């Protein structure tokens, strides 16, 4: 017993801050929010148990919940592939035959660092305003641009473009992955006269699959959590006509504007389930489409 203690004590001292944090800031709150999701709670009076009431309302009667799901899923479905294709395309351009890639890499990464800031969200509102830069460029080629931000049909695309603009981190991860592909494979293919496109589908894509998978999971989770830019661009409400009602924005408003903490907790738990499901699906299906290099098949 004493030896057990002596062996483990130092490690747990180092682990202590994280352990406290884990119980007080992660596990505790998650369980608490599970409990709250079965209650009506307005922060003034004590939580009142209402069973499945919140979830029932959410799935059967709350139109805005379904709208928020639609907006968020559309965003994820558009933004993630757009961003990953940009990232992979640019990474492949940078990977081969260029000696001075440092400058480009820096330029392409910078938006990813700035993109989450309020300043950029403010800027985006103006770029896509009716008299903004985007419409002026379109006017030069004779296209009458929409009022992108205030038109419910187009507002979501402004955020998709913002997501595309921030392709820097998946690009860096792709670059590292591309470095790991042996050059002689391409040389052999070149000698055999394999066309570029087939080199891409037969060498690059299969060998890059683990990295693509990693980026896909990471970016999907990130995109579900999008908040600040949607909040700023939609004036904090999801406007126009709820077309920017991101799930997180809806949750925030239910909780901190209307103080429906119980209902917001139910929303939060459903978000957790969605993200967990996506991660699980990605991991369990990965063995069918991701081949790691050290595997023999």
């Amino acid at each position, binding site marked *: 017993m004493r030896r*057990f203690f002596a*062996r*483990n004590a130092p*490690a747990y001292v*180092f*682990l*202590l*801050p*994280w352990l406290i*944090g*884990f119980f*007080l*800031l*992660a596990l*505790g*709150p*998650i369980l608490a*929010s599970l409990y709250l999701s079965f209650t009506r709670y307005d*922060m003034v009076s004590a939580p009142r148990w209402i069973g499945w009431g919140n979830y029932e309302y959410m799935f059967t009667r709350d139109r805005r919940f379904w709208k928020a799901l639609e907006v968020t899923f559309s965003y994820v479905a558009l933004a993630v592939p757009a961003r990953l294709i940009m990232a992979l395309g*640019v990474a492949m*351009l940078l990977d081969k*035959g*260029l000696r001075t890639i440092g400058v*480009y*890499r*820096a*330029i*392409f*990464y910078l*938006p990813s*660092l*700035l993109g*989450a*800031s*309020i*300043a950029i969200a*403010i800027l985006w509102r*103006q*770029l896509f305003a009716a*008299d903004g*830069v985007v419409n*002026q460029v379109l006017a030069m080629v004779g296209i009458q641009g929409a009022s992108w931000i205030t038109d419910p049909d187009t507002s979501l695309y402004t955020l998709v473009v913002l997501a595309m*603009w921030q392709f820097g*981190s998946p690009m*860096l*991860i792709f*670059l590292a992955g591309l470095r790991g592909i042996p050059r002689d494979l391409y040389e052999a293919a070149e000698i055999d006269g394999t066309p570029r496109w087939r080199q891409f589908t037969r060498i690059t894509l299969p060998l890059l699959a683990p990295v693509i998978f*990693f980026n896909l999971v990471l970016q999907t989770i*990130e995109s579900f*959590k999008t*908040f*600040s830019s949607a909040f700023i661009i939609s004036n904090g409400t999801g406007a126009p006509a709820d077309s920017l009602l991101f799930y997180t924005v809806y949750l*925030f408003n239910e909780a*901190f504007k209307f103080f429906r903490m119980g209902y917001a907790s139910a929303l*939060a738990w459903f*978000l*957790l389930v969605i*993200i*967990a499901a996506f*991660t699980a699906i990605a991991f369990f299906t990965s063995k069918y489409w991701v081949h790691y290099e050290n595997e023999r098949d």
Partner: protein
Amino acid sequence: MKTSATDLELAIQMDEAARVAHELRLKRDRRERNGRILKHIFLIVVSCVMLYPLFWLLASSLKPENEIFGSLTLWPSEFHFENYTKGWYALPISFTVFYVNSAIVTILSVIGNLISCSFAAYAFARLNFTGRSFFFALMMMTLMIPYHVVLIPQYVQFLNLGWVDTYLPLVVPRFLASDGFFIFLMVQFFRQLPRELDEAAMIDGCSPFKIYWAIILPLSLPAMGTAAIFSLIWVWEDFLAPLIYLNDIKSYTVPLALRLFLDQEGQSAYGQMFAMSVLSLVPVVIFFGLFQKLIVRGIATSGMK
């Protein structure tokens, strides 16, 4: 020794072959060079498109109000530097206060992240203890949890503690290693350090804390640097937590202050709003410029955001 005709022919053929090969190589080199030039042109165009919004923001912060919209040129007809001085005092409280607030929150958070995350990472990467893989798996799972899920109970918790409208809800979690990304980043780095160092130090009678402080930390400056820069930039730009916990304008951080400009939209203060937006990005751009290498390597090795 006589030179036969066949030898001569062979020599000529070989010479010919060498010439053809040389020509082919030249052709390939030329094609590759042309390809490179095309690539550069393409990349430069993409770079310009990528950077245009940022330059537009900078230009608009200096333009006279009537030039901001309706012209694509980046060069202002006259420079209105007073957008910056006026913008600094445009809100009921001057930006000096907001910058001091942001600096306090950011510096404390970075310190908290570095201490608590390196502690946890050291335990995970270098010490053997019962339950290590269990806790490590738990830690990795917390990476997935959206902040929105823990937000409400955390808010209730901090409200009951009387911490709302103080910086404690923003800073204290960072001293409790709430951002698992940095633990993961450091674990990856600590694991690469040779085990023999610890063993030798142990034989010399060093305590685990001494090993952490005198061996692991000094060897891990790149990882610590990467974590410091990322946490600095993320905390600086953080919006959601300050939005929830800070109600008094005197305690606002810079992003919250910027949002106040939006409420005044239409009062033709675009130039000032853009000027303050530019200033809020300056620290990030400077740190990126200085520590670009660390940031790039940090992402490539850990796959962060």
